[in-house]
């Protein structure tokens, strides 16, 4: 019986660089109002984390990249980053 180990994957999806990010802007203004002047480049995205059966990190990464391009992110308006955190628990 094969017993494929699982990898813990965290995908971070953000508005594409260069596109308007009204949510990030609103938070930037709120931070400034609270005294954090000079904070820039505030962006809001979402995180999708999951356990994936994969023998190694590269396999997990390429599976996750395909998930991102097919459903998790919309390439027209979003960028994504994939982090593979070793074996899942």
């Amino acid at each position, binding site marked *: 019986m094969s017993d494929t180990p699982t990898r813990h994957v965290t995908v971070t999806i953000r508005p594409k660089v260069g596109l308007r990010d*009204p949510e990030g802007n*609103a938070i930037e203004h709120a931070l400034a109002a609270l005294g954090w002047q000079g904070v820039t480049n505030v962006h809001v995205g979402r995180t999708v984390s999951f356990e994936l059966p994969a023998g190694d990190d590269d396999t997990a990464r390429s599976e996750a990249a395909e998930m991102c391009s097919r*459903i998790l992110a919309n390439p027209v308006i979003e960028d994504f980053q994939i982090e593979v955190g070793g074996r899942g628990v």
Partner: protein
Amino acid sequence: MSGLVAIPIIPGVNCEHDVAHAISLVGGESAFVHHMEATLPSGTQAVYIPGGFSYGDYLRAGAIARFAPIVAAIGRAAADGMPVLGVCNGFQILCEAGLLPGALARNVGLRFLCQDVHLRVETAGTPVTHRLKAGNVLRIPINHGEGCYTAPTETIDRLEAGNQVLLRYCRPDGTVDPDDRESNPNGSLRSIAGVTNEAGNVAGMMPHPERASESILGSVDGLPIVESLVKVSTTAGVA
């Protein structure tokens, strides 16, 4: 013989009865079709994807609905030239499915917008605008949180050059100003409110024509759009 307009029912969509009613107002026939169906009802000559919040807008508006079997069937029919109109969430689903270019991002002011807008018809002669003329101004309501039409600049240039911009948000006098939040409240790029695919048979728009289809609703300006789709479905094609 009357052509049938299929109305896909995807969980969370909530305008299907309004759409069926508006279609009946112009003498058309419609049929609801379940999202798990892999084919359109026999006799279908056009599709009207209603608005709502499919799958609770989880992940992104329309992102999960695009994988519904019925959306695959709509994609196949669209490739064969069938007229398809997606309104609001229907528009978002068509963009997510890659049947229309671009994407609908969060409204620039972050507010959910539920109000009348004015629209200028940019391209007449499509399956959803052949009862209208370019330059006509319509008053139709919007009802969305993610309606800011967004696409790479080169895509938008291509849409404009190819007459794929269907409608733009405008002032009551028909003038367009993308930076004017009064007339372009969601901040859509170049005030784009609706687009078509390259072939012109697939159209998407954020405003709800079915909600402007009877005088008791405050406007009948959406009726020519519904009527265009219904009539094209009865004649199976427009010149």
